């Protein structure tokens, strides 16, 4: 069974992770633009980050047979830095047109400030103009209220819910998210957000329609194999392979194919791995025997 991790920050991960992910069946990932762990202080840093997402990281993933797509955005936390907002928003149109950019995201709320409202709405407008879906991050603090406010804003600006993922859902937010018509992402984390047994229970209760599961693995304590591990937990709980293929492969493809930048037919073909060229100093393979398949 091929797997799709629809939210993972590979820039923060190692080649060991890529190797383990490929071995576990992960064939495609979406890497949302996000916070890099400490505040950026220059617009140029964002541009180089965006370029890394559409360039080096996509190439790195390809060396392990994994197709890499990304989303571009000013994240909610940094939307509070007035010196950055207009400059980063001005960069985005150029990058939102690039191949492999499958949504605007992560956008949404962190502290739920007025500045965050403005950046959120402005970026939903960019998504509309560039005909892209939106990937929305739910805040970690005051999450239930954050979800209500998120869904209200999406509704008020008239952004289509079927082109929207609301991510990092919990038992308390999932019913609201599904009722709104949006797709519902779940980030399976070692200690916070959501875990495997709870995710099994949610699928048993709500089914597979518009349900997405991701690792959201990044530079913190997180696990890039949470997608296969959650699939295994669901299978052990008796959930059918048809349902699993829907949640872990067809749902993310159906959602992101709305961008017109992800070809479902191409995704069914394996990506040929060719690491022959990669034994030079700064590249991903250092003196190891290259794999060619």
């Amino acid at each position: 069974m091929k797997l799709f991790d629809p939210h993972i920050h590979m820039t923060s991960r190692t080649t060991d992770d890529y190797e383990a992910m490929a071995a576990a069946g992960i064939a495609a990932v979406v890497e949302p633009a996000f916070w890099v762990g400490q505040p950026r202080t220059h617009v140029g840093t964002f541009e180089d980050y965006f370029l890394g997402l559409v360039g080096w990281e996509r190439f790195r993933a390809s060396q392990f047979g994994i197709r890499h797509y990304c989303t571009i955005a000013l994240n909610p936390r940094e939307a509070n830095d007035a010196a950055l907002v207009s400059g980063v928003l001005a960069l985005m149109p150029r990058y939102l047109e690039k191949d492999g950019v499958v949504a605007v995201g992560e956008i949404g709320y962190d502290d739920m400030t007025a500045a965050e409202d403005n950046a959120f709405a402005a970026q939903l407008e960019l998504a509309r103009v560039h005909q892209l879906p939106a990937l929305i991050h739910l805040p970690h603090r005051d999450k239930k209220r954050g979800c209500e406010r998120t869904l209200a804003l999406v509704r008020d600006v008239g952004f289509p819910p079927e082109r929207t993922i609301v991510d990092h859902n919990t038992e308390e937010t999932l019913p609201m998210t599904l009722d709104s018509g949006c797709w519902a992402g779940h980030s399976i984390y070692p200690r916070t957000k959501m875990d495997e047994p709870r995710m099994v229970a949610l699928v048993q209760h709500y089914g597979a329609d518009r349900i997405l599961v991701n690792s959201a693995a990044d530079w913190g304590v997180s696990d890039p194999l949470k997608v296969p591990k959650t699939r295994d937990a669901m299978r052990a709980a008796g959930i059918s392979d048809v349902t699993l293929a829907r949640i872990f492969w067809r749902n993310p493809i159906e959602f992101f194919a709305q961008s017109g930048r992800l070809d479902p037919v191409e995704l069914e073909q394996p990506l040929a791995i060719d690491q022959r060229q990669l034994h030079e100093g700064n590249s991903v393979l250092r003196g190891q025997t290259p794999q060619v398949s």
Partner: protein
Amino acid sequence: MELADAVARVAPPDGVAWLTQQLVFDRATFHAAFSAAGRRLGKAPIGEVDAQRLAARGLPWSPAAGADECGRAALLLAAVGSLDPADHVPLVSDLLRRGEVRERQAVLRVLAALPQPERFVELAIDAFRSNVTTVFEAIACDNAFPARHFPDPAFNQLVLKALFVGAPVARIVDLDRRTTPELVRMVDGYASELIAAGRPVPADASLIRRAR
């Protein structure tokens, strides 16, 4: 135009019609069109026949280059045909700096066909520092630019890097003409280093070493 003809043979008809419209340069829509070429034209390689056809017109070209890359190269040629010459280097520099992988490849492949190509030497030398192998090969292989315009030190580094990364050295245009005693010495040195380390010497090294 040969590039657009090559695109027409492998891209979907609506994409070809779209490209024809976009070849009338419009500053306001150029960047969006340059990026959108991937979705409009697809990535099907043009193949040996069209690559040879382009080479016969003085533009050596990779048969692996996709319809998207050929379309982007045609868009760039149309743009420089309409822009003031003083705007050419800033435009090419911007496309290389802000391009995703296949956008950069397209620009590198067509550099030799731009007016006064020697103006792009620094950009081309910087481009071959890329570790994305397809970007490296776009400037190093099936491309007349390095042999025509690189100074010896840069050309020698390009050949050595091709050996390092396993790019097909035989596809470096005019390698024989540009092989110097200094390049042979550098390749011998690399071979010696590999032999000392108990590693195989790439077969392509013989393409340079036998030139002595």
